[in-house]
């Protein structure tokens, strides 16, 4: 590497990333789907599709609908389940020279624990990201992540059953995201990531049916970016553990908003659909931005939000 190249490395607690750009869970499959398009090893890391203990077929279609500057999805967490993941996906992921993070979710706290345990001791998995935005069937269907103490219980269980850094992924569908962040920090999370999708709905006015078979779904894309930046800003100021930011990032300028707000890395989601090379392009553009501005290391940008007005 050229000596004058800016240093893009970032630390997320126990984790070191070669650069701050991760692909977001559910928007990058198991990585391999994009491998024909560019060198995945350029990425800071890959967060794979949400994994459950047993395979899940997912929701009936339609599962996605476009909205202004965004999209709704109700995939229903379709995935191949832990066993098949280990058998079919992990071996290939292990060949990559980038950080692989496994996103997990359970239908119960025990299931979260079982997933963490199932991933214990395995090579090639750098960290676990815990999706707490799914409905908690045991407690009336509200998402685990909308209640601080339930969020803490999930976190505790995963941390206890895991030998890896645990990132808890926060839901934005709450009154005070800081309360949830503080609760999971206290429960032992090594980092938090946010935001997951906002809950939304769209109706077809001709058939008068919801456009998603599941009725509602998760809103993502640039439409939600201002909400995401604000929540990241809030959480960075509340917890001591590192924060990974995302929501609506389309280009390096958007990524910089999160870094300046204090996120130590970013996740690229919906942008992968619009431009499958979004991740690498953002990395390159961040590098150029640093060169242009004479910034030696990207860490020097993180959390530099400035409040004085002239």
């Amino acid at each position: 590497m050229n000596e004058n190249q800016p240093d893009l490395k970032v630390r997320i607690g126990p984790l070191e990333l070669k650069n701050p750009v991760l692909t977001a869970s559910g928007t990058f499959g198991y990585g391999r789907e994009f491998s024909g398009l560019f060198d995945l090893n350029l990425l800071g890391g890959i967060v794979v599709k949400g994994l459950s203990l047993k395979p899940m077929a997912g929701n009936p279609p339609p599962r996605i609908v476009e909205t202004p500057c965004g999209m709704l999805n109700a995939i229903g967490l379709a995935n191949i389940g832990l066993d098949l993941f280990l058998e079919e996906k992990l071996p290939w992921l292990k060949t990559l020279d980038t950080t692989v993070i496994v996103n997990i979710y359970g239908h119960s706290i025990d299931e979260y624990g079982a997933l963490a345990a199932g991933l214990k001791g395995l090579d090639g998995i750098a960290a676990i990201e815990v999706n707490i935005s799914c409905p908690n069937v045991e407690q009336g269907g509200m998402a685990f992540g909308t209640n601080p103490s339930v969020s803490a219980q999930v976190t505790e269980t995963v941390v206890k059953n895991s030998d890896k850094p645990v990132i808890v992924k926060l839901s934005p569908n709450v009154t005070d995201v800081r309360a949830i962040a503080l609760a999971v920090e206290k429960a032992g999370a090594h980092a938090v990531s946010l935001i997951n999708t906002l809950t939304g709905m769209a109706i077809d006015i001709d058939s008068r049916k919801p456009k998603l078979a599941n009725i509602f779904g998760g809103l993502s894309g640039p439409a939600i970016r201002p909400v995401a930046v604000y929540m990241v800003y809030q959480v960075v100021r509340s917890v001591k553990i590192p924060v990974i930011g995302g929501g609506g990032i389309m280009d390096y300028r958007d990524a910089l908003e999160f870094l300046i707000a204090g996120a130590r890395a970013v996740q690229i989601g919906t942008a992968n659909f619009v431009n499958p090379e979004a991740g690498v392009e953002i990395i390159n553009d961040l590098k150029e931005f640093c060169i242009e501005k004479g910034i030696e290391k990207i860490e020097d940008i993180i959390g530099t939000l400035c409040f004085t007005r002239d």
Partner: protein
Amino acid sequence: MTEQKTEIIFNSQVASGTFLMGMRSPEIIAEAAPGQFVMIRVSPGLDPILRRPFSICGIQRDDIFLVLYRVIGKGTLALSRVTQGETLSVLGPLGRGFNLPEKGRKAILVSGGIGIAPLIFLAQKMHDMDILFLSGYRSKKEIVPVGWAGLSGIKTFISTDDGTIGHKGPITDLLETDISGSSHEIPFVFSCGPLPMLKRVAETTLEHQIPCQVSVETHMACGLGACQGCAVRTSSQVNRTYFHVCQDGPVFDSRSLDWKNL
């Protein structure tokens, strides 16, 4: 499969609300098979944000692939306004196309409306076979002229819902007549079009135990098998609940789909 800025060579209206667009990409052409599709980013802005899927409808020279599309919403409207010389990002070719039958077998191609697009490319690739091309339209003014496609010699029949030309009624009427008529040879059926039509084609071919491949449409986000957004329900023959159209299709054996709950 590549993602590239692709130059528009032409983009012109060929029938009511219907456009034929030529895009230069030797790379895409090198891999393209009938039934495969591309995802086009119709505008550089954020609205509309998602790419739009279109079947590859044919090839011209060795460097231009064709897309035949109907304007139905803001994405296709934006596309219809793109002019020669501009470039658009194209991702493709994607998905699994048609399985071509052995030479000499009879093939019946059944299209509804703009569903003719992938079948034109298919017909081009089967030029040495016995093809019957049945295309249905709502009305005469929507008929896509196919002079450019080099399909001369292929038997073609047309139907329109309003009877302005050809048989009046659904194109599946003609399919049924033909199948019932020619009992000694089992043809292959290939079909693309609106869901109710496809359903009828699937029923008819099932009834007569004729192999049938259909190209189906769903909303798509990635086109790459990553988002799982493009699910369609499988029939009980298949030991999984959903196919992903962008990866497992868009062409399927019609018996592998659950037509009641697609």
